[in-house]
């Protein structure tokens, strides 16, 4: 998509961004609750969270657009408290583009340079350079209402790039674009980051976007940082049930389990009232006897000897994988298996309501404390089928 590689002067200094004990309140509501964050030089950091998690508020704090209760924001080691947005050496790309509708694309991009008092000729060179890089040099004379959403977002990006900021702040820049174009822009943003090497703080609620773009993901919920780490870390080692349920498609299945009352650490599915259920044996103990067990859809495999007996509900064919929804007791579970003849026969040609068995490796089950959501150190040593009603052999 890049028409020309950017001129070398787009490579400038990169800086770190540190957030210390940040507290932000709107009236009585706490939007950000004592947040600490360190984003390194040239890192692509994605703030991931559902709406209302405080992620966009955090970005606005970084940009200096809203003032916070307490705490400190440092960019390149300097405190930004009380520094005017344009003096922070940051640029922002907005979800709704936020272009100036009464100005041409050229003037939209050039405004900052004009405000800095740059010479007309120099502005012209810079604007044209950046426009070429982003492939919008044909649009410079148009007005924002005369261009498409994708083009508008490029203009938004150009407006940020032309300033050569140390930090890019991006507020869900792709969420107003349609699906196909979003993927294309995602690739472009990746290349953009590779070429400029700048620090990027990127806010999104789309975990796919976060996984594909980020060097590091910071998951936020209700104004708090839940976990941070590389996409791989978050996927393989979620430290919190919220992260487990948020990262990965389809999302992880989370089961509520209760201590069975037997001696030892055997927990069984809470909702199951009749039919076949399952239980897990923990290596350690949890005090209140309530846990959440998480199983990734892709960790389940069809196996006639499997420990989980379920009832087929529906199946989606996605090409290389087959996604199915099955039921165990009252829990609805998603399953993602590779496309094989065996899987196709059972899932795609199987009738809804037919019984299927899945195998799960005990070490692939994540265990969380139910009340706090935190990951438990105890691991699962075995998984067993439990027959609730009939006198079937539990071990079968």
């Amino acid at each position, binding site marked *: 998509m890049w028409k020309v590689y950017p001129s070398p002067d787009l490579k400038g200094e990169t800086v770190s961004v540190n957030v210390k004990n940040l507290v932000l309140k709107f009236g009585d509501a706490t939007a950000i609750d004592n947040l600490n964050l360190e984003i390194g030089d040239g890192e692509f950091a994605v703030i991931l969270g559902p709406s209302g998690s405080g992620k966009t508020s955090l970005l606005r704090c970084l940009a200096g*657009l809203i003032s916070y209760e307490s705490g400190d924001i440092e960019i390149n080691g300097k405190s930004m408290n009380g520094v005017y947005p344009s003096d922070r050496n940051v640029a*922002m790309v907005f979800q709704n583009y936020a272009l100036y509708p*009464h100005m041409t694309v050229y003037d939209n991009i050039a405004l900052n340079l004009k405000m800095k008092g740059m010479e007309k000729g120099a502005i012209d060179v810079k604007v044209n350079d950046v426009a070429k890089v982003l492939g919008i040099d044909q649009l410079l004379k148009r007005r924002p209402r005369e261009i498409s959403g994708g083009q508008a977002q490029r203009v938004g990006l150009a*407006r940020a790039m032309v300033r050569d900021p140390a930090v890019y702040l991006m507020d869900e820049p792709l969420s107003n674009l349609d699906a196909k174009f979003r993927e294309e822009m995602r690739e472009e943003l990746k290349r953009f980051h590779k070429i400029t090497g700048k620090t990027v703080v990127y806010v999104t609620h789309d975990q796919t976007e976060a996984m594909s773009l980020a060097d590091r993901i910071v998951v936020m919920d209700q104004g708090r940082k839940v976990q941070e780490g590389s996409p791989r870390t978050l996927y393989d080692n979620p430290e919190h049930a919220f992260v487990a349920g948020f990262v990965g498609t389809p999302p992880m299945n989370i089961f509520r389990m209760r201590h069975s009352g037997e001696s030892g650490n055997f927990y069984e599915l809470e909702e199951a009232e009749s039919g076949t259920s399952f239980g897990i044996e923990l290596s350690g103990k949890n005090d209140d006897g309530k846990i959440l067990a998480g199983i990734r859809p892709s960790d389940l495999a069809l196996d006639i000897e499997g420990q989980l007996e379920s009832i087929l509900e529906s199946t989606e064919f996605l090409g290389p994988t087959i996604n199915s929804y099955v039921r165990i007791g009252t829990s609805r579970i998603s399953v993602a298996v590779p496309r094989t003849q065996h899987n196709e026969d059972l899932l795609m040609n199987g009738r809804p309501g037919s019984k299927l068995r899945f195998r799960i490796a005990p070490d692939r089950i994540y265990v969380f404390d139910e009340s706090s959501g935190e990951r438990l150190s105890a691991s699962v040593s075995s998984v067993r089928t439990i027959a609730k009603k009939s006198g079937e052999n539990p071990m079968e």
Partner: protein
Amino acid sequence: MEILNVMKKRQKKNRTGRMAGDQNSVILSIGRVKKVAIQLLMILAVVIYVLPFYWMMLKMFRTSIFAHFPPNLNPLSGTSLSNFAQNLGSVWSFGSFPRWYFNSIFVTLVVLFSSVIVGSLAGYAFARLNFRGREMIFYTVLGTLMIPFPVVSVASYVFMLDIGWLSTYQGIIIPEIASALNVFLFRQYFLTIPKEVEEAAKLDGLNPFQIFTKISAPMAKPAFAASFIYTFIGSWNNFLWPLMVIHSKSLYTLPLVLNFFKGVNGVQIYWNEMMTVVFLTLLPTLIIYAIFERYFVEGISFTGLKG
């Protein structure tokens, strides 16, 4: 068997189809009568609105000082350009007419620009700036819209008397500048502008005042057009306030001059000259309407108000 059924269904469809068609034609003819009636009513309305203007034009091209009933509406009887020139000449040399005309233009221009500037700045502040008591102050300002002018006129008059502004330009102009309607109109419009655009401007290095002049104000063009039009009409036609504060003839504005031409206590009215003054009073409004016609309609539909 199935074919038969289908055929029956088709026949049924045809029959109902034809019936619907007949009904439609009946409805259509009723509709036509309605249309004609509405058009006749509209023509009548146009006549009612245009007739006074037409009569004004006739009067201004005639020399007769009398108004007869029924009026002679023949456009060719007694009208001539030289008559108009004569009427114009006698009006222009009457009293200090050029000065009065200047007064009207001067007062209106000053009120117009000051009121729009003050209104837009205040509206912007109420829409965008955070300060203590903002909502309370705004609703107080808005509340003044509910108070009819006669209620405050006496107090305003006494105030002008106290500070010695009676029969002065500032006495006519200053009280007219603060317009709650303008403040309200601008506030509402600025609220519709996405905040992000102004935030982008902040990041681009504009200070709050520059954001207003370079970004928000240009984006609020429709609000400016509407406010210009209303303020112009209001100030140009303003009668009551100038009548109260102006005691010296040299400061008269056109509505007062018109009142003057109307004659006092049974003195003969010179209809031809009065209609010429009416025309001269209307002229700027007509010119502005011709230029800004598009905005008139937009302004009215934007505010949902009548000028």
